[in-house]
């Protein structure tokens, strides 16, 4: 399959992730949206890697997966702390940034 198709698919994936992050109230689902975005990026990496015949793309995808794992760990830990503090994971109520 031509690389363009993979790229388009990766963008679609990224967009769905973005939409999830933007419109969902549940912080968990928002985190899942972020995972989707990362996977969109990964897909693009791999597609280009094949196009160019260069394995560096694979290495970066590998790093991104590791990063995603770290991000999920810390992000979920923050959610747990948030839940402990205010008994909710509703992002609309987590507006401490404006203080």
């Amino acid at each position, binding site marked *: 399959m031509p690389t363009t198709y993979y790229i388009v698919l990766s963008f679609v994936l990224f967009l769905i992730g*973005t939409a999830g*992050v*933007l*419109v969902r109230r549940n912080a968990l689902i*928002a985190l899942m949206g972020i995972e989707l975005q990362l996977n969109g990026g990964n897909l693009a990496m791999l597609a280009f890697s094949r196009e160019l015949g260069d394995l560096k793309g694979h290495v970066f995808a590998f790093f991104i997966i590791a990063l995603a794992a770290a991000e999920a760990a810390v992000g979920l830990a923050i959610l747990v702390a948030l839940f402990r503090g205010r008994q909710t994971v509703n*992002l*609309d109520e*987590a*507006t*401490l*940034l*404006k*203080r």
Partner: protein
Amino acid sequence: MTFNLRLIPLLPFLGAAILMLFGRKWKRDTVLLVAAGAIAGSCLVAVDAFFTALPAAASKGGLHDVVGTWMAAGSLKIDLALRLDALSGLLCLIITFIGFLIHIYSSGYMEHDPDYPRFFAYLNLFCGAMLVLVLGDSLPVMFIGWEGVGLCSYLLIGFWYSSSANADAGKKAFITNRIGDLGFLIGMFLLYQFTGSLNIPEITAAASGGGALMQTLFPGTIFAAPVAFWAALFLFIGATGKSAQIPLYVWLPDAMAGPTPVSALIHAATMVTAGVYMVARMHALYLLTPGAMAIVACVGALTALFAAIIGFAQNDFKKVLAYSTISQLGFMFAGVGTANFGAGVFHLFTHAFFKAGLFLCAGSVMHAMGGSGDITIMGGLRKKLPFTHGVFLVCWLAICGVPFFSGFFSKDSIISGAFGTEIFGEGLLWVGKAVGVVLMLAALGTAFYMSRLYFLVFTGSETRASDEIKHHIHESPGAMVGPLVVLAVGAALGGFIGLPGGLLDHPEWNLLADRLAPVLGPEMEVSRSIELGFMVASVVLALGGIGLAYLFYGGGYREPSRKFAAAAPRFVRLVQDKFRIDELYGLLIIRPIKRLAKGVFFVVDRILIDKILVEGSGAIVGVLARMARAVQGGDVQRYMAVFAIGAAGIVYLATRPSVPDVLKVTVSGLSVDVDARRGSKPASRVQDYSFDFDDDGKPEVTGAAPAAHHAYPRAGTYTVRVQVKDPNWGTSTSLKQKVEVR
């Protein structure tokens, strides 16, 4: 010849500054020492300049002192320069000498006033400003003094500002003067435009030449008149404000709200004569234009008579003197207006003494009467206030023009000068005679109302006041009586400096005319018979006025005065109400202006400024703030959305094809060149251009070149459409422009 003239105004200014800064904490004696010391020092310098240095320089334009360049812009250069010649020197002597006496007098009069230092600071400031006015070598410098004395007048009229009547009187004086000052400014501008200078000697020189100042202004209209006429007229409007002439005299009677020494110094002896001084100073200009002279003379004469008539019925000591001052100023203007500049200045000099004396007597009497100036409750004060009575007697005789007192000589020289003047030519010959006749009537009136004042206040056996006041009556302290006596001597003998020498075959006896000749030209020759005739006539008038007043008021209100009041009650009432001129002005001028101001206030202040500008800008900030606050909600998702929108916007802007705002089209004949480059640099981006020269959807030229050439088959108006595509970003834009080919 240079002389350190700047010391003369500088000393009072320094005194004022020191008193304003430190006076509050000082003892009264220290304050007086500084204030009177400053003015005495200034007086000594003026005496030195006038008597020692001036004689040598008199024929060369007098003493001169350039402090520095005040302003220089293009061809306009104004020096802060002072000049002392016989005329300004005489004024300096009057101001500093009488100013000094009044400082001394004030130390007694204001003894118990809590604002003692402030009073003396203002008094010093006034003297400094007045000295700048008379010494100024150019009209703008004169104008500084002119405005400075106006300011001091305002400050001193409203000195007891806690009473709103006093503050209102101050404002009235200030605003009325502003109207006149506008005239003064316009006069100045006219002179600058047509002579190119504001320097008085240069204007005088230009006026002697005539030329530029005789051009006709507004030709073809009813306003057609030489420049000199308009300049002189506008300057005279300034003078009517400062010197309380018709129609701007209304402020002076109200100005009596100030302390009496102020009335004596500012509103009798010095400031109000500034207008007369100015006309004399600009005599070369006025001599060019008999029409303006006639206006000056007529206004002066009418004011003299009109104010005298109002003076008949006033019952306030100071009000009578105020109208008397207006009347006497009218005499002075009639004098300068009939080209008797020397006579006008002579009357200014004698008037300064006797009127200052009269006012200080008024202060002394009011001091004795517990502050009241109501002459209907006075009477019989001759014995209780012997010194004051003596001084008042001398000054009264002087102002009435009884022979050999000062007013006799000066008033007579004005009246005979008016009859004898030769300044008015064809069509204006009547002016001299008419002015003379009116002045004689005014002189009769003067004698009458002053005698009425004298008889009602000092004669009679009984004081008409309450017992409480009567018990309190006492002669004033030495500090007040001393200056009075000095002024009385001046009022009695001052006339001898201007003896009608020609009459006695010794022209050199007229010291004043002798001194003033280099400045104002030789004294007018009046034939001996005219002079003698008017001398007799004015003596008769003076004595007649006094006699008539004696019939009416000798020793108190007499039968004829009561009969007269009963016979014409409405007329008496009208005169008492000062012919209701204030009310007329209120109706014709003040009320429409107030209405206009209210309208402007509503439209400009309430709507434009308050609603639109102030509240509008507040509302805009509010809306913007609400928008900014919406973004700053602490909501991460919203931040992210804004970030996405911003990134999209940046990408949109960055990926549009690079095109100019307007196509560059060059037409030559039937062919056109179209350039779609943005700026002059070649674009680094690869873009596809398609040029459609007749906008029919079929491009004539396509390719990567940003410019194209096309020749139209025939003339006409075409629309050129250029489509620009960026193949890398898939964006495109089109530009359109109309081209006219001929």
